[in-house]
């Protein structure tokens, strides 16, 4: 059996990592099918439903009748003239059954197939806000589903850049040594000695405000991986330093292999398991960093959403006390970060050749 097969088998034995992996796959499916899963347009404001708490799904109505099809109650909105806030109360006389594959806002699935089907919804004038609404009445569930697009992919893009920079510079540093090594290592030390949050903040603040969302997204990925690659480069360098002394490297050279061949055919595949583990473990860091930047208002700018940008609304205590459902995106961040950590741990244990 090959090294990869052995690693895969050991990984499959780790239940926690497998479960986490499946959850992550579901999350990524969620952002792929965001248009289909989200019941509302995440940007559509609904003035009648400002700061509405999450609606509950029911099977049994007030009279004790069981409904096979789950339903939500209608909403009665009144103005509390003392506190000057809108108060939303369920109207138990109105029952809106939840339908699946309903017609809603038209969109193009995968930007290709025009359709207007959504996974679930209720007939108008009923509403279904499972995670409540924000200060202008936008559906939180839809916003979380779409916000995942940025939050979950920023880590992947950032890590791809980290792998490219980290492994190539780390390999060059370890393999060639001497002056190359000194320059790269001192650069890494310089980058590592920057306080990261102010550095990111400064770089993000320097981005032109008129950039499109996509441009901004990639710029933020680059900013995050600017510091991220240093750790990986150091680890790859250490690995390459030890591989360089291995007899098989000498054997490859004695067989007439060029430097390029030794690096790409012998060094990198040997270091690959290590690189994958480090990369997996650094994805959550990137997700958290993006969340932090967006929370500070320096990351993704409205109207685009990310989980960090959603949490920006929950910055003050009064908001959190009165509208606790605005914290829900934080729970998603926690779940995703934990899952990545578990998968990373599982991969690390599986890639360890000395594990039993």
């Amino acid at each position, binding site marked *: 059996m*090959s090294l990869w097969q052995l690693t895969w088998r050991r990984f499959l034995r780790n239940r926690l990592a497998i479960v986490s992996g499946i959850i992550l796959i579901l999350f990524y499916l969620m952002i792929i099918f965001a248009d289909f899963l989200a019941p509302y347009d995440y940007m559509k404001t609904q003035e009648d439903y400002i700061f509405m708490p999450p609606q509950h799904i029911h099977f049994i109505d007030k009279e004790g009748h069981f409904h096979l099809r789950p339903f939500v109650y209608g909403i009665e909105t009144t103005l509390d003239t003392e506190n000057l806030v809108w108060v939303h109360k369920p109207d138990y006389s109105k029952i809106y059954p939840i339908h699946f594959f309903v017609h809603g806002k038209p969109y193009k699935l995968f930007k290709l197939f025009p359709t207007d089907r959504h996974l679930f919804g209720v007939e108008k004038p009923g509403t279904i806000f499972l995670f409540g609404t924000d200060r202008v009445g936008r559906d939180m569930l839809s916003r979380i589903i779409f916000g995942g697009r940025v939050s979950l992919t920023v880590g992947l893009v950032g890590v791809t850049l980290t792998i490219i920079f980290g492994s190539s510079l780390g390999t060059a540093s370890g393999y060639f040594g001497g002056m190359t090594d000194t320059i790269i290592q001192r650069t890494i030390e310089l980058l590592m000695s920057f306080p990261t949050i102010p550095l990111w903040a400064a770089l993000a603040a320097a981005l032109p405000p008129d950039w499109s969302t996509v441009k901004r997204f990639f710029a933020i990925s680059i900013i995050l991986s600017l510091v991220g690659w240093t750790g990986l480069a150091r680890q790859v360098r250490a690995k390459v330093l030890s591989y360089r002394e291995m007899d*098989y490297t*000498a054997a490859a*050279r*004695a*067989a007439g292999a060029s430097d390029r061949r030794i690096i790409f055919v012998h060094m990198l*595949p*040997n270091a690959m398991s290590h690189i994958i583990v480090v990369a997996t473990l650094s994805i959550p860091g990137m997700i958290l960093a993006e969340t932090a930047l967006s929370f500070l208002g320096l990351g993704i700018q409205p109207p685009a959403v990310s989980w960090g940008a959603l949490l920006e609304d929950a910055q003050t205590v009064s908001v959190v006390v009165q509208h606790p459902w605005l914290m829900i995106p934080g729970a998603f961040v926690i779940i995703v970060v934990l899952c990545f950590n578990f998968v990373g741990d599982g991969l690390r244990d599986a890639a360890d050749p000395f594990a039993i």
Partner: protein
Amino acid sequence: MDQDVILQVDDLRVHFFTQEGLVRAVDGVSFTAKRGQVLGIVGESGCGKSVTAQAILRIVPPPGEIVGGKIIYYRQSSNNGAGNVTQTVDLTALPARGREMREIRGGEISMVFQEPMTSLDPVYTIGDQIMEAITLHQKVNKSEARERAIEMLRLVGMPRPEETIDNYPHQLSGGMRQRVMIAIALSCSPSLLIADEPTTALDVTTEAQILELMRGLQQELGTTILLITHNLGVIAEMCDDVIVMYLGKVVEHTDVDTLFFNPKHPYTQALLQSIPRIESTKKERLKPIRGIVPDPYAIPSGCPFWPRCDHYIPGLCDREEPDYITVEPDHEVRCHLYDPERKTNAQVNESR
């Protein structure tokens, strides 16, 4: 030049510029290897045997550098059909990482390493690694390379080569891995094979098998072998000619029979006395060589062996470095005792 010489090393000097100081790992080594023969290099650890081999392949690791001397390789090509054409190439003059040197490495001069457990890349099958060596030097497609790899595995006595070709190194024993290393080294039909202690890491029965295999293949393919070892038993079994090295210098160069029956240099004599003999019935203690190998940073002046030598001549050995002295045809020794102008042979013979 002589048709049957394949490699001529002339006053080779390899120095290591370490932070602690200069190490003269190889300091003025000269020898010639004859085509189709097995030349043994014997000596204690740290005497420069492996560095000599690395210098021939131009793979001396930094901070080591070839600082002087020539390595003349008599390159033979017979592609014209008009007999063999011999070209001479000075390997020290070629760029170490250049294309020509890479073609020679593995293609014409190949090497078997000491440690079969670490000299195969763990992430590839042994077939991949043999095929890598083949495709680096020959224009063949993948299936031809595989055919050839299977053929090589069969040649080195690998059982069921069609199946073992897809095994990973960790699935094979040490002896089997060394067979794979030999298969890789021989896959491009090199004219010179450098074997750097090929059996040191193996157990004794495996060692015998590997030596037998190498000897058999050498006779079958006519490859010249440069066999580096510290085991005099291996020398006796395998070699035609032998050079004895001590602290980066060749101290004696002769054929294998003379080495064992008429060694001249006091170091060679001491080496032979320090190995156990099965025929001796007397309860006799082994005679180790007095003293220790000097610190490589402070090699004694004059003959490097004088602090440990039983025949040390004060005022001469520690001042002047002896030159090569031909004591009989094809037998050179670097020792003041055999200097014809000194007439001190009697002393040596008395003491033996």
